[in-house]
């Protein structure tokens, strides 16, 4: 069997905010093209874990290995590391003073030094891909939540990341707008993007995830393929959680 390349490996990761121990000895492995979905109640640490993967939060101890390289803030330029790890936020965080296209080309031109003409070309094709070819010159305030999130996805993709992190990307959306964002994410998964997704959308987890990780109280309680996890969870806690959300 063709062994897939390892993209992310987390070993014995711990993180506290003051007295609050948010992540406790987390081990996680994500292989190339895998879609890993993190589920769990609010406060279980899934968002913090995600943020440790692109170093928006710095772990207290443990190891984060990206594409075979152990990343430490003392030895690595974290800005360079973040270029490889795209992130999509719950509240979109689009730059309101820039147009849709401006949002997408900002990082390629400013961080990577991509020529503006080329960045515009690539930016437009990304926006076409997420179905926003008629919104290049519009400001984010004129978009619906679903459109905003699709711009945010295009903006992250513009840096050509190896991994995409999604932090509850549909939680701030009106119900009727969730579908269009999930569809964009599904297409991305189909193209082979490595994705780690924190979400409450169990349908998405069932359909798209290669692995589902259930977190509770800062620990990974159970880890498995969606069919096993949803049909036949082993842990009592997982059963209770799934019963409450399904």
């Amino acid at each position, binding site marked *: 069997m063709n062994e897939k390349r390892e993209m992310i490996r987390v070993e014995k990761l711990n993180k506290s905010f003051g007295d609050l121990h948010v992540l406790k000895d987390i081990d996680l492995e994500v292989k190339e093209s895998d879609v890993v979905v993190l589920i769990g109640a609010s406060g279980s640490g899934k968002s913090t874990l995600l943020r440790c993967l692109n170093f928006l939060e710095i772990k207290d101890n443990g190891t984060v290995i990206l594409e075979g390289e152990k990343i430490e803030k003392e030895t690595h330029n974290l800005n360079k590391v973040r270029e490889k790890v795209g992130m999509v*936020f719950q509240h979109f965080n689009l730059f309101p*003073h820039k147009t849709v296209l401006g949002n997408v080309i900002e990082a390629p031109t400013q961080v990577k030094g991509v020529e503006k003409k080329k960045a515009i070309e690539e930016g437009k094709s990304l926006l076409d891909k997420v179905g926003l070819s008629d919104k290049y010159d519009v400001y984010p305030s004129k978009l619906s939540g679903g459109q905003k999130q699709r711009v945010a996805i295009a903006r992250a993709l513009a840096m050509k990341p190896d991994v995409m992190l999604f932090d509850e990307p549909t939680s701030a959306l009106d119900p009727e707008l969730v579908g269009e964002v999930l569809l964009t994410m599904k297409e991305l998964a189909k193209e082979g993007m490595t994705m780690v997704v924190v979400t409450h959308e169990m349908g998405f987890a069932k359909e798209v995830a290669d692995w589902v990780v259930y977190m509770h109280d800062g620990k990974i309680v159970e880890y498995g393929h969606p069919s096993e996890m949803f049909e036949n969870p082993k842990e009592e806690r997982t059963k209770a959680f799934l019963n409450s959300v399904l």
Partner: protein
Amino acid sequence: MGKILHFFDVFINSIDIFVEGLWITLKLSVVSLLIAIVIGLFFAILKISNIKVLKWIADAYIWLVRGTPLVVQIFILFYGLTDILLIPMFWAGVAGLAFHSGAYIAEIIRGAIQSIDKGQAEAARSLGMTKGLSMRRIILPQAFRRAVPALGNQFIIGIKDSSLVSFIGMQELFGVASTMGSNTFDFLPYYITVAVYYLLIVLVLTFAVNKLEKRLAASD
């Protein structure tokens, strides 16, 4: 009735000399406020930095400015700069006003920066931007927009405060009014005249700031 006619007489006959004063007031205000923005931005960034010493420096500056009257600051800087450093009077006046407004503008900009949602910096950092780049490209442009009303207000205060440099002998608007008043012993009409000039400047500036606010709001 005669008094009112007399005021119009004074107003019209003194237009030439007041326009000279007006020109100096405008130069003083514009130059000092531009410098004050640079000073303000600098100290605002010191104040939000994680390095304690830099914060203290900013705090000390703001404390000095807030803790002493502007007229005292102008005199100290005037005698310090013109006697010791032999700097021309105009620039001593500019220095006094910029030093003063800078502290208030620093607080305005700091507040505006801190009012920008943390998600903006996070999004910028997640795209690989350095702290500096994220500040320059993402945070500051938004902060300045948000600060426009408060900055406009500070500019109005700055223009009116510029009248205090008449005490170091500058013949800007208020200096002209005082001189004319003393020369003729006809104080009241000249002070009313100068009030009209200030009102007109503030009227124009208020209009411009409102326009700018509307334009910026349109792109939001």
